[in-house]
């Protein structure tokens, strides 16, 4: 997949963020969001115990005691705070993270996601995925719409294991942005060269066009 596809997603999600938001970023595409923030100041929380995470340091300034949730070295910004894991997940579960931006393996038509366990493989890691899904004020999924084998990630029913019954608020893919409402899947933005009808056909899912309303 081209970097462009990922950049489309990251840029669109950056637009959703507000100045002052506290944001938790999953690995992969979510980490690209910071490149498109412009003047907006957001505060990055990492669940291993830091609010106020800055970018990766130069190699000669790496401190193995300052890492993100993926155990990669990071820096801290002015106004940062350290805390223990129980307090960190209290923050997450307690609804104090404005936005969690997560990758996913699958997402169903109700907005329930599966982002931790691949079927037929040993499932031995969950990390903070389920806590973020359950607890963040707003959950945005950043993901390509199709897997490498071409199968859609947006599906009628999850075939992978659920990350929790809480539905996400927004799914941004390289083709379109979706929300999940009582009457079905809403398309609120479309970017690619596929029409909503074509997307619906490829996904084998009904889609409701809300691009006009949303952008009015």
């Amino acid at each position: 997949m081209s970097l462009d596809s990922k950049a489309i997603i990251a840029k669109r999600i950056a637009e959703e963020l507000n100045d002052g938001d506290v944001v938790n970023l999953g690995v992969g595409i979510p980490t690209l969001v910071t490149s498109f923030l412009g003047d907006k100041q957001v505060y990055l929380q990492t669940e291993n115990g830091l609010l106020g995470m800055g970018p990766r340091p130069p190699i000669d300034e790496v401190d193995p005691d300052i890492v993100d949730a993926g155990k990669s070295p990071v820096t801290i910004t002015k106004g940062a705070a350290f805390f223990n894991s129980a307090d960190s997940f209290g923050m997450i579960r307690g609804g104090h993270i404005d936005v969690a931006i997560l990758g996913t393996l699958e997402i169903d038509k109700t907005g329930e996601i599966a982002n931790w366990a691949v079927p037929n493989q040993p499932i031995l890691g969950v990390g903070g995925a389920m806590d973020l899904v359950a607890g963040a004020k707003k959950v945005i999924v950043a993901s390509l719409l199709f897997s490498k084998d071409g199968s859609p990630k947006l599906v009628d029913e999850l075939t992978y294991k659920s990350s929790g019954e809480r539905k996400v608020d927004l799914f941004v893919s390289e083709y379109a942005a979706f929300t999940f409402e009582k009457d079905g899947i809403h398309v609120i933005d479309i970017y690619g060269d596929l029409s909503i009808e074509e997307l619906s056909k490829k996904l084998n899912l009904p889609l409701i066009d809300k691009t006009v309303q949303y952008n009015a």
Partner: protein
Amino acid sequence: MKKLVNIDKIEELVKDGDRILVGGFGATGSPLTILDKIARTNVKDLEIVSNNLGENGQGLHKVFVAGQIKKAVGSFFTINREAVMAWSRGELEIELLPQGTLAEAIRAGGAGIGGFYTKTAVGTELSKGKEIREIDGERYVFEKAIRGNVAVIKAAKADKLGNLTYYATARNFNPMMATAADIVIAEVDEIVDELDPEIIVTPHLYVDYIVQTGYKKERGAYVESR
């Protein structure tokens, strides 16, 4: 300083079949010196409670390689490939918990809380067989507190009484683990005369023994200093 002991003291404190709480998030905040020592003892059938089983061949990875671990309770073993293989072969028992549930269960274990209801993992495989309760219109999973026979943790500074402070994201699970075991052993970088009462994270009453770390940081990694 009364609580300061030689690393060999570990041999007396850790016993076959013990459930050991091990601080750290990967190698960050992991009591590497103590774990090296455990890996050199003959202690076996350990149940380890830790986020994962070490990183980069350090810490708990050595204890795992030495064949001393019977069961691991944690949140992210995917990166521990050898452990995953051992699990596939039925040689290692693994209990997986969401990271926040793990942290909270250990805190509860240290705080006289028998169990709690968390909103995390409702509707997932990790809540299967666990009680679900609706409280004020929201669904929660019941989780029991976790305690250990021994906790081995890593702190930055200890004062003469054993009060502890941590450094940066090396804090992680260490403060909760310090509260939730019968015997608590802290590996520290430095022993100072006094710490500001406002910044102490782990008050001394939680700490039974202190050992001096044998590691230092060099070029972004932890290396043995002796």
